[in-house]
Structure formats: structure tokens, C-alpha cells
């Protein structure tokens, strides 16, 4: 019997249908009142006049596969009925939402693309409950996510990764050694040349270090220490106190220049290509003024000790550097795109929300 025959025998069966097509090409017809519960479908029907026949089936968004469509329609079929009580609806929702996490994710995604907000909320809340109380490892497992944060990032993701205690210690030893060598050969004119001649191996090593913690770190002396200790409560304005903070960190060598470079990068999101590597290297050869402020006496025994430690450190660092560099290089490249992608979205969204206020 054809559809028309059915209509003659049972007029009440002649409902309106909407034709929907999923990305796999399959087309189905759905009762109009059920399908129209989805804002996306509603829009397609009313604004574009689509869905009235098989050849004019509404193309559903890519995230809606047949299985998901079926679930969404089940949801719509129940909720579009006007007479139901809140209790009934809630009870249905609770049962409806019971499915494995993968399907739940797919359903959230599908509901979002169909703009079906109540279902998005329902599924989102369910996902939130799954996430709550779990460790990062557990969450990663459940959602099959990569473990791509480095150890340093996990600790304080914005801290510069070369803020390795060994490197900082090495840098300070180098700084001291370089200073005493300069003292000895004061009569030579060009600082940079002198450094290169005497400490070629050292500087080569340093130039591998991301961010070049070279000369910028003045060795802490008792004088500087006193200055820091006696610093009183500062109630300065924002920029001033930030500068003070940065100066402080520079002078005690705890946060090398590249940390500040990172600061700069963050504040100038347009500095696209400039990787931290390049910025860092520039710093090594920039002349440093602070050196002269520092106390000079280094007794020979200590100097010997420093020499030995410097060599020792150089040896040790050399042995792990190849792997380390790989890590740093891949980190430097991967991170940027993610940041900017979200930054782009985030900035737009942020402006949007500010306007709403």
C-alpha cells in the first residue's frame, strides 16, 4: 500500500515528516514535531524551506552520525510532548544519560551542532560528573587524551623550561669565572672577543641553552643580599612593582632573562616566529653593566674549586644535552600554535563577554 492509500484509510496517520540526511549519505524521515525540536532543523525548515521531501533532505552537521541522530531524536520525541511533568522529564533524562563515555562525548558534540541546548546541558553535566574527583591520569585514560605536558609545565606551566637548577648553578659558576678572567686581562678592549677567546667551549655550551642565561646573572654578594633584605614594603603601582620584581629576580639569578623574555612574548602576542631560542642567544652577547657592582675578591682555593666544578658540570650537561635539546625544540614549536589558536578564539570570546556586561 502506498502512503496515499494509507492516508485515505486512516487520515490521522497522515502526519508531516521532515527528511534528514546524515554525512554517510543515508536519508530518513522523522515526524515533524520531533525533528523541529532541534533548533538547527527548525531553522533549516523555516528559513530555508528544506526537508519537505527526500530530494530536499536537510543535511545534518558532520558531527551527527546515524547512531547519534537516533539518540537525539529519542530525546526530542520524549521532551517535545507538552504534558509531561518535571519529575517525568528528570527521570527520563537520568535513564537516558546512562551510556559509555565515548557515546556521551559523541552525543554532546552532536547535540551542540544541532543547537539543542537542553541536551547539551544534560550531556555536559554528565561529562562533568565523570571528570570530577579524578586525577589527570585517570581523565586522560577515560578520554584517550595525550600526555603532552612536559614535567616543567606540569609544575608551573608558564615557567621557562630551562630553569633547571643545574643550569642556573652552572651559569653562576661561569659568571664568576668569566669575571675573574676579565680582571686578569683588563687591558684587552673588546669584552665579547675576550670571552670568545677564553671561554669558547663554555659559550658554545651556553649557546645551546635555550634562552641564554649567560652573563645576565650577577653573582649574589653580601651587598646585594642586604639590599634585598632591607627592601621595605613597597606599595607601588602595577608597572613599577612588576619591574621591581623582575629586577629582583635578575639580580639573584633565580629567574634568568629568558623568563622575562617569555613575559615579553606574552604581552606581545604578535611576536609570532620569535622563538625563545633566538631571543635567548641575543642576550648572551649583550654587554652587561651590573658586573661592576659586584664584589671582586675570590680566593684562589675557591677559584680552583669553581674551575673543577665548571668542568665537571660541562661534562655532565654535555652528555644529556642532545636529548634535552630535542625535547626543548619540540616543546618550543608545538606550544605556539595551540596558544595562538585558543588565544584567537579566547580574545574574541573575551571581548564578547566584556561587551555583554
Amino acid at each position, binding site marked *: 500500500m502506498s502512503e496515499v492509500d494509507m492516508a485515505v484509510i486512516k487520515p490521522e496517520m497522515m502526519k508531516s515528516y521532515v527528511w534528514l540526511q546524515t554525512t554517510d549519505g543515508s536519508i530518513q524521515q522523522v515526524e515533524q514535531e520531533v525533528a523541529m525540536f532541534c533548533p538547527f532543523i527548525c531553522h533549516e525548515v523555516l528559513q530555508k524551506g528544506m526537508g519537505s521531501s527526500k530530494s530536499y533532505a536537510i543535511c545534518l552537521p558532520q558531527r551527527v552520525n546515524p547512531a547519534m541522530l537516533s539518540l537525539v531524536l529519542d530525546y526530542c520525541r520524549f521532551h517535545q510532548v507538552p504534558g509531561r511533568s518535571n519529575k517525568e522529564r528528570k527521570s527520563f533524562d537520568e535513564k537516558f544519560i546512562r551510556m559509555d563515555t565515548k557515546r556521551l*562525548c559523541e552525543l554532546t558534540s552532536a547535540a551542540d551542532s544541532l543547537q539543542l541546548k537542553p541536551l547539551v546541558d544534560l550531556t555536559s553535566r554528565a561529562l562533568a560528573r565523570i571528570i570530577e574527583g579524578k586525577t589527570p591520569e585517570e581523565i586522560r585514560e577515560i578520554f584517550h587524551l595525550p600526555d603532552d605536558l612536559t614535567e616543567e609545565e606540569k609544575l608551573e606551566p608558564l615557567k621557562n623550561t630551562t630553569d633547571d637548577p643545574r643550569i642556573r648553578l652552572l651559569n653562576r659558576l661561569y659568571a*664568576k669565572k668569566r669575571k675573574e678572567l676579565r680582571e686578569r686581562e683588563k687591558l684587552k678592549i673588546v669584552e665579547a672577543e675576550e670571552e670568545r677567546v677564553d671561554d669558547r667551549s663554555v659559550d658554545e655550551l651556553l649557546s645551546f641553552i635555550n634562552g641564554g642565561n649567560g652573563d645576565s646573572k650577577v653573582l*649574589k654578594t653580601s651587598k646585594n643580599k642586604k639590599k634585598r633584605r632591607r*627592601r621595605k614594603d613597597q606599595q607601588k603601582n602595577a608597572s613599577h612593582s612588576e619591574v621591581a620584581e623582575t629586577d629582583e629576580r635578575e639580580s639573584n639569578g633565580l629567574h634568568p632573562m629568558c623568563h622575562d623574555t617569555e613575559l615579553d612574548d606574552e604581552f606581545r602576542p604578535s611576536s609570532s616566529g620569535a622563538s625563545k631560542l633566538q631571543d635567548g642567544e641575543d642576550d648572551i652577547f649583550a654587554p652587561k653593566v651590573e658586573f661592576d657592582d659586584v664584589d671582586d675578591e675570590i680566593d684562589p682555593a675557591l677559584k680552583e674549586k669553581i674551575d673543577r666544578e665548571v668542568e665537571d658540570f660541562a661534562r655532565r650537561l654535555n652528555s644529556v644535552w642532545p636529548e634535552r635539546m630535542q625535547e626543548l625544540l619540540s616543546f618550543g614549536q608545538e606550544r605556539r600554535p595551540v596558544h595562538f589558536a*585558543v588565544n584567537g578564539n579566547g580574545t574574541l570570546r573575551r571581548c564578547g563577554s566584556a561587551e555583554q556586561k
Partner: protein
Amino acid sequence: MVRMASSFPEEVLEHVFSFIQNDKDRNSISLVCKSWYEIERWCRRRIFVGNCYAVSPAMVVRRFPDVRSVELKGKPHFADFDLVPKGWGGYVSPWIDAMSTAYPWLEEIRLKRMVVSDEALELIAKSFKNFKVLVLFSCEGFSTDGLASIAANCRNLRELDLRESEVEDLSGHWLSHFPDTFTSLVSLNISCLRSEVSFSALERLVGRCPNLKKLRLNQAVPLESLADLLQRAPQLVELGTGAYSAELRPDVLSNLSGALTGCQQLKSLSGFWDVVPSYLPVLYPICSRLISLNLSDAVIQNPDLLKLVTQCQSLQRFWVLDCIEDTGLEALGEFCKDLQELRVFPSDPFGEEPNVSLTERGLVAVSQGCPKLQSVLYFCRQMSNAALVTIARNRPNMTRFRLCIIEPRAPDYLTQQPLDFGFGAIVEHCKDLRRLSLSGFLTDRVFEYIGTYAKKLEMLSVAFAGESDLGLHHVMSGCENLRKLEIRDCPFGDKALLANATKLETMRSLWMSSCSVSFGACKLLGQKMPRLNVEVIEERGPPDSRPDSYHVEKLYMYRTVAGPRNDMPGFVWTMDEDAAFSIS
């Protein structure tokens, strides 16, 4: 397997995150993977920084671009016992400076044990157009002038809570700075203010704020005026009275009585300075509704106190002076079956002899009678192992147990033994114990118990206890969830600290004063642990003018990603990596 990240749009993930507001969960989310970290940081709206020096304002502002609510804590807990010298730090200004430009939509600031200046308050008042909540818990450094700025400029203010803060009272007229058009107040706590506020301004303010639910007055508000205020705010849920004394006059009595019964939503009471017992009966009609009662400033003796308490059968939280005595606590155990939190404070802590009959029996009675009891702070003069064991067995659901036996090193008064076994029972039975304060005569044994059983313990306070480094070692090596450890006057030295140095980076902070930690050990820790700030508080002159072996006066160590702080006063020395190279 399709990876979630690729098919799940960011906005949807952000929407999922919006249903997760718990700090711990947000932290977990941010550590899952790079993309989740990025998404999470853009939609994080609330930040809690348990130690304001653990991270810098610049770092926070950079990582979280759109925060609406900030909570910061400054000084270590032992500052409450005057162990932290004045000027130590905890200044909020750098934070307000950074946030004033970064977070124009900031709505809430909650501070605990921080130094807040009037300038900071002014900056808050002028920078955040939608500012709603200001809580200054145990803060200092500001005056009523700063409050006036807040009142004058924060048009959408909902909560102004100054609990236990030290405020310089320059003028009671700051309240009048709330404009007449200001009606959004929901909570006002001025209980810490010493001098009078302008009563007419207060009356008008209370009268025009229809959503006012919590009102805690200061002592200077007389009892005779209370009825007036209550009549203007019958929707109050929490009330802190002013002085609770007046001449016994029938009109005052009846006004007060009427006004109180008019407050049908009232569930919480506090205040009650200088109580005149004859005014207590006006409270009887509302007692059965009360879930929280704070009588810690009220000197009320039995039988008046008993009569009051036995009528509060819905009580969940009860703070009281030891005037309640064992008999009162026994009644509490009998009538207040919903009790969850009990705090008993000493009425005469420095007296030689006990002035009231409050012993371990009271606490045992409450532990027996109140099945929901989970949080206890108890000051007393005697305790026994047997009592502690009974309490532990009665209440395995205990989560916070702070016992303060007033005399240091007081043994079990029945057996003269140390109280190791009793506290051992507490940690063994109360498996969810998160906070513990010890007192009495204790050997290293108690720490062995703690290290073995107290696996969920997050905060431990120790005074005048232990015999050797082994004690400290047990705690540091055994308590997996330990976040805050504060120790005073214990014979703990270098060995345990150095052996458990890595543990320190998993904790928020460690305080040790009048112990046996050497300066050399401090230097070593500072040098070896870059993510730890090791601060020596030494008011007797620079520590490096002494041999490494000398014992530091006070030591405060905390993990940080911000490096040594730059606002230390003259008596605080930081031990950092360069300490080993310094020429002394």
C-alpha cells in the same frame, strides 16, 4: 579509537568545564594535556592561592586572563598566637595593583591574614565596577577611611565582612558613605570594630537593603537599639548582636522579644558581649530553629547557659566558653543530636587553677551523644588516654580534632603516662582526619602513630612535644597528604628535615620555631631546593654572623614558583642557592 580532542569543539569542552568549579578538579583538568590546559585557563573564574608568596600576581594574571573571584592567604597560622613578628609580610597591594588592570570584572576578593592598606581598598573601590564581595578575615593595616572608599564606590556590593580584623577606627561615619541609592547589601560583619559606628546610618542602611541576610554588629551597638534594627530586617538569617546588656526594663524586653520572633528566618546567632542573663529568655522562642550559636564572647554561667542550650535541638555548630562545664556538655550530648562542630574556649587561660569544672568528661559525653560530630576544638586542663580512646571509638567520622591542654607537657592525669596512646587511637580510628592539633606530654611514639595511620591528614600543629628527630621523621615520611605543618618548642633538628627535603615541595608550608634546626641546615635546604623559599626569622641580628651550628629562632619554609620574595623586613633572611657562595 577516535580521540576526544579532535572531534570535540573547544566551546563544548568549555561548557563541560563550567559545571566543574571545585579548585582541585580545575587543577586536575589543567594537567590533563596541553589543549585542556589552554581551554581551562581561559574559563577559570575563581582562584584560590593558599600562600600569597607561592606564586606572583604577574604569573596568576598571565595564566588566567578572566578571573572574577580571588582568595588569598598571607601569614602563617601561628601568627594568630603572636609568633609572627609585626611587619613580616603578607601585603596585598601587589595583588590589587596587578588585578586592578588585569581583571576589570573582578567581583570577589577574600583575604585571610593579610596586610591591607587604605590605598589598596581605594584601588579596589575604583577599579572593579562590578565588585560584590569583600571578606577581610584576620587582616590588618587599614582604617575606617579605607572602608569609606568601599562604601562610597562599590555600587553593587553584596558582602562586606571584616571578621576578626584589626581596623584603625578613625571615624564611625564611614557607614554614611554608602549612598542612599545603595540597596544591594546581603551580608555585613563589623563585629571587630571597637568604637561606635553611626547608628542612624546603620539603621538607614539596614532599612533600605531588602536582601540583607547576615548582620553582625560590634560590641558598641547597645542592646536597646537592637530591636529597632531587627524590625527593619525581619528577613535576617544570621545575627550577631552587640553588647547584650542593659538595665532590665520591660519595654526593652518586650520590644526585643517581639522583634526577634518577627525574624522568622533567623538560624544563626553570635555576639553576646557582656551578657545580662535576664535577657536570655527572649531567645527561647527561636532556639529550636538555630543551627549555629556562637557564645565564645559570652560569659554565661550554668544554669542559664544550660537552659539555653537544651532548647537548641537543631544545633549544628556551637562555640562556647568553658563556663559550660561538663554538665552543660553532657546536656548538649543529650539534646543536640545534629551537632557537627564544637569549639570550647577557655574563659581564664592564664589562671593557675581551674576556674570551672570542665574536664575530659565533657568532651567524651559530646562524642558519645552526637553522632554527627566531626569537628572539635577543645581547651581543657586535664586529659587521659582512656578518654581519648573512648572519643576515637565513638567518633570515627571525626575530620578535625584540635585538643589544647592548657598546661604544656601535661601527662595523662590518671596514669601520669604520655598521651601518645590516646592520640594514636584518634588517628587510627578516625581515618578521614584532616586536621589535628596535639598537646600534653608526648614522646616520639605519638608521631609514629601519626605517620602510620594519619594518611588523610592535611594539617598538623605540634607544641612542646617529641623527644628527637625521629618524631619529625615519622610525620614527614608517613603522612602522604600533609600540606601544612607547624611546630613550636619541640626538639626537632636537622636530620629529619634534610632526610625528608623532597617532601617539603609537596607541602604548602612548614613552620618551626624554638626547635633545634641549625642555620647550616637552613642554608643547605635553601641551596638545594630551588622551588622552596627558606626563610629564617631572626630578631637577634643577622644569622650569618654566627656559626652554622646555631639554632635558628624561627623558620618558615614554603614551596613557591615565584622565587624569594622581595618584601622581607629586616628580621627575615632568605636562604637561597647563593647562600653557599656568599662571603660572610
